[in-house]
């Protein structure tokens, strides 16, 4: 049977100007053969709507403004409201001390400063069932 090509939605929130990380991740995931949908200037409603419409396997968000706890909780709430359990990962300027809080909210994995794109690719492959 042919393998399903993972489809990933990458999103950046309104007014967060930091996009270097997401450029790295986008490039690495594409090189690993994954399909990327990238939206920016988005809020949690738009992200969830696009994720459902595009039928993605994973949502990756970035946050470097210090708003990670707020936007993550809003995104998880929006996913719940839509009765969908698409997994979510987050990257950006996120202090270690906030990682457990994000995991508690249901975020699958946090990629803080110093993380590599390879780590994100490995995790995305695993969670979308691409690892043998």
């Amino acid at each position: 049977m042919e393998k399903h090509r993972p489809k990933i939605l990458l999103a950046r929130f309104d007014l967060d100007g930091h996009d270097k990380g997401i450029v790295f991740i986008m490039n690495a995931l594409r090189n690993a053969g994954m399909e990327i949908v990238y939206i920016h200037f988005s809020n949690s409603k738009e992200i969830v709507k696009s994720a459902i419409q595009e039928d993605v396997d994973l949502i990756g968000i970035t946050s470097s403004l210090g708003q990670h706890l707020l936007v993550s909780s809003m995104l998880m709430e929006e996913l719940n409201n839509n009765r969908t359990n698409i997994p979510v990962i987050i990257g950006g300027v996120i202090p270690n001390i906030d990682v457990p809080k994000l995991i508690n909210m249901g975020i699958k994995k946090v990629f803080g400063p110093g993380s590599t794109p390879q780590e994100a690719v490995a995790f995305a492959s695993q969670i979308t069932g691409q690892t043998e």
Partner: protein
Amino acid sequence: MDNHVMNLRQEWEKELRDTYEKKLRFTLPKYNNESGIELKYVYDPLDIGDISPEMPGQYPYTRGIRALGYQYMPWMIQMLHGYGTSEETRHRTDFLLKEGMRGYKEEQPVILIEVDPPTTVGLDPDDPKAFGAVGLGGPSVSTLEDLDNLLKGYDLTKTRFAPNTRFTCLPILAMYVVYAEQRGYKPGELNGQSQNDPLSRWITTDIGGPTPSTQFKLRMELIRYCSQNMPQWNHTNLCGYLYGETCADPAQELGIVMAEAIESIEAGIKAGLNPDDFVSRFSSQVHISMSFFEEIAKLRAWRRLWAKTMKERFHCQNPRSLQYRMHVHTGGSSLTMEQPLNNITRAALQVLASVLSGVQSLHTCSYDEAIGLPSEDAVRTAIRVNQIILHETDIPYVSDPLGGSYYVEWLTNKVEQEATKVINEVEGRGGFHKCVEDGWLRRLLESQMLKWRQQLDSGERTIVGLNKFKAEEKMAVPPFVVRAKETAEIAVEQVKKWKANRNSARVTKAIDDVKDAMRKYDSIEKAGILMPALLEAARAKCTLGEMMGAIYEVTGGRVYASEYGRR
């Protein structure tokens, strides 16, 4: 003499071959610096045969823009700061001033503040679009009251006020002029700077704002107003920093900024100005990386290239137009979260490179900035880096201490040549503005970013603590936390109160006048038409969001999204 040097050089080369390559079987390494310039292992007088003698304060100012450097005036210790509410930011300002943040003189407060993202695009804190971002990265500044919270008690003739407000510099300046007017100051007495370089922010951060042509008009309006009314105000901060942070190499940074400056000056001429009326009031925010000597060469080449361009291309007569004053911001992207104290060493090397190059001003990053905004302890240490170099070492005693170094002089020439190629390329493609709009510049920066990433991942590039010399034990510094929710509530409350206490008929009239002026401002030649309406709006207590809202309404689109972000 040349023959003698040539003989010495050949002898040295022979030694490399005989001893190192043949006897020791050593494979000679190849070094290219960040700008791709291939380096030799050593330089000699033959490498700099073409440099002409020059002293500091003499054209083309490679060695410094003044005859005396730090012997007469130390560099400014300016710390970009801001978080939470305007009151909290004021608290931080006072703390930094107490610790040694200052202008050229001790009694000169410098208030270089970052504002929150909604303020940079022109959204009041009570605007639903601002939700979640109020007070992050800086305070919300939307009313004269916010300005008063930041500035009350300071003598505005001595204070250097520089708010980093991206797309909203023109209305913010109108608000500042009116705020100062209410405290009894005239515009001509004020000093500080507007960022007024929105396209560089637009392309490197991809936050939407007004359309590029509107940004350009706002920018020229500000330059025109300042050149006629605020002679001490730096109207434009040319920002190479953001290019450096998005992995442009030093020669690219210089080339892109020069291309942008050239285009702005040409536009200023179109708006009816003489270059000598405004060229001397460009300020800068220059990036600095860990490529120590290359950065020194860049800073020296920068002054020379600026001087030559202003003299030869724009025929400036005023010496000040030829003297480029430099503010360096140490590289935030050089910092690591791992082993955070290593960041103090990185900042110190970058400050040292800047000081050896004779810059006028520095912002020094704090060791905890890889995880967020700096704590008081971290930012104090960043100030101390400057004070140690200034007061404990012999570094400030001699100007341009590296001048005459075969290597540094050769490299200065090389970086200047490489940067000139970049200027020619940008101009050949239709100029800076065109290169931003058609995505060429963004693609260049993205390919640089990916190259950097690839070098890091492959181990070709070493970052200590990150991909080499990792520590088993994780040492973490506590993150500085902004009380985001409370901050937003306070800001919303304040702006609502402000709006309830004013003459609404006057507000409506003032906003209509802004729209009307913006409509009539259909070409750069009409610059001068908008600022009077904005000043009147500020006097009528209009908020920043209302003024920018009027501009957005007339020019189409609000928080305009750039095309390159849509893929």
